[in-house]
């Protein structure tokens, strides 16, 4: 349990270092690429570097089709895929440690979503440690 507690503490302290990582490719290309082989008005979907889903339809903007989001950003996979995202970035050498990522109003960054869970882990770890100590102290 002590190992788990230590791991959780380290994750809490250092785990957010890669939350601003970007994937390869040109920025904003995801919204264009998903419509590259689509027709005007087709449904489309893309994900950002944090695995948040952007769902919309292909619209003509400038000279190309662009996926225009019309549903709220779906961040349900962001937290669950944290390990995958971090591994992907590490695999491709994208350890972009950047502490100044801006989040949209009303949105929660990956880091923001991770903190409550981290605190919960610390709480549980502390509880388990306390119980263990109590067990050791009892005759």
């Amino acid at each position, binding site marked *: 349990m002590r190992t788990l507690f230590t791991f959780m503490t380290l994750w809490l302290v250092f785990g957010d270092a890669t939350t601003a990582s970007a994937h390869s490719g*040109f920025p904003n290309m995801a919204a264009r690429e998903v419509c590259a082989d689509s027709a005007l008005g087709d449904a489309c979907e893309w994900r950002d570097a944090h695995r948040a889903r952007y769902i919309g339809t292909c619209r003509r903007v400038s000279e190309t089709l662009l996926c*225009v989001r019309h549903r709220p950003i779906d961040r349900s996979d962001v937290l669950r895929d944290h390990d995958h995202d971090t591994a992907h970035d590490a695999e491709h050498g994208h350890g972009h440690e*950047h502490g100044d990522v*801006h989040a*949209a*109003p009303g949105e929660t960054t990956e880091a923001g979503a991770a903190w409550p869970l981290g605190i919960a882990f610390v709480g549980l770890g502390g509880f388990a440690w306390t119980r263990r100590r109590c067990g050791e102290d009892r005759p």
Partner: protein
Amino acid sequence: MHLMPSTHAGRCSHRLLLPTLILSLVVFGCGDDDDSAMDTGATADTGSDAVGEDTADVSDTGADTGGSGECDPGAPGTRPALFLDGSLASGVTEEPCMLTNGEEVMCYRIEIVGEPTNHETGPYCPRTIDDGPEDVGLWPESGTLYDVDGAFVTNLATFYDDPTWQLYNPDTGEVNVTDTAESCLAAAMPDAPEEYANFCVECTLEDVGGPSVIEYLIPIVPVPRDGAPGEIGNTPPGVSLNGVRIEFPADTDIILGAYNIAPLDDCGGHVNNGIGYHYHESTGCADALEQCDGHAPLIGFAQDGYPIYAMTGEDRVEPSDLDACRGHTDDVRGYHYHAASPGENMFIGCFSGEIVDAGGGRPPRR
């Protein structure tokens, strides 16, 4: 870290659990949405005190802000009296106009000054790789805005997985910036000369000869389109109440294809030749008018006459019933749009109403 067992049996009570739980609850309880709000570092005045009351010549626009210092109760359509003081180059007038469906209607002629009246513009590019986020602008990357600071610049080759990126002199740490009018105009061209590859492109209003007055013809009464929405194409989607052109998404692929970065300032705008300062993103600076009912603040008006509001209001929840153009209808405002999030490089996705044939958002024809 070695955790020594306590010798004090009293400290081993399970009542120790209580502070732990309280701490967790406090932390969860403190998870205010504001924590995730974007810190633009902007100097926008979003209060309604700045709402212009005498900038428009149109006498009855339906505008009713409830007086200076009060919120806007909201209303359908375009209300020219809501433009901020100083944001209009001339008085708003009415004239006949032809819509794209061939219908002739009455339109507002609106001329904006082409620079924001409620915040400064810039900064954009870092000068050295030691510059921090407070000295620079932003770059949109697939839904996220990044500070174009020294750390970002030095990491570009890794960030885009392309060793060609070298935006700075590794010996001096100086960033390649288009800091003259000539270089800014050259590097901003789609077919930028090779010597302007690997530059941070920034143009100031002085570089392009000052703010550009932009005129719009916007239908007084919006006309919904029959059938499919109208595509934005190369039409600037709208105009903001603080006197700025709302532009369609930046061609970041062209910019990056030349190994250049053209940062936006913290307000989501930048300058180029011909159209001066313009917004590509809604970051809060153009949220000019708070709504009395907590609805998202009013930003401006689209070319089809429907109003554009910020993405979220007081509840910080984006509407879930937006159509393909990012619009929907409520009882107070009728049909209206909500801007996309910062990082998406756009405000609205298409036009639900008819726009004026030949479009607006151009320098005035004198």
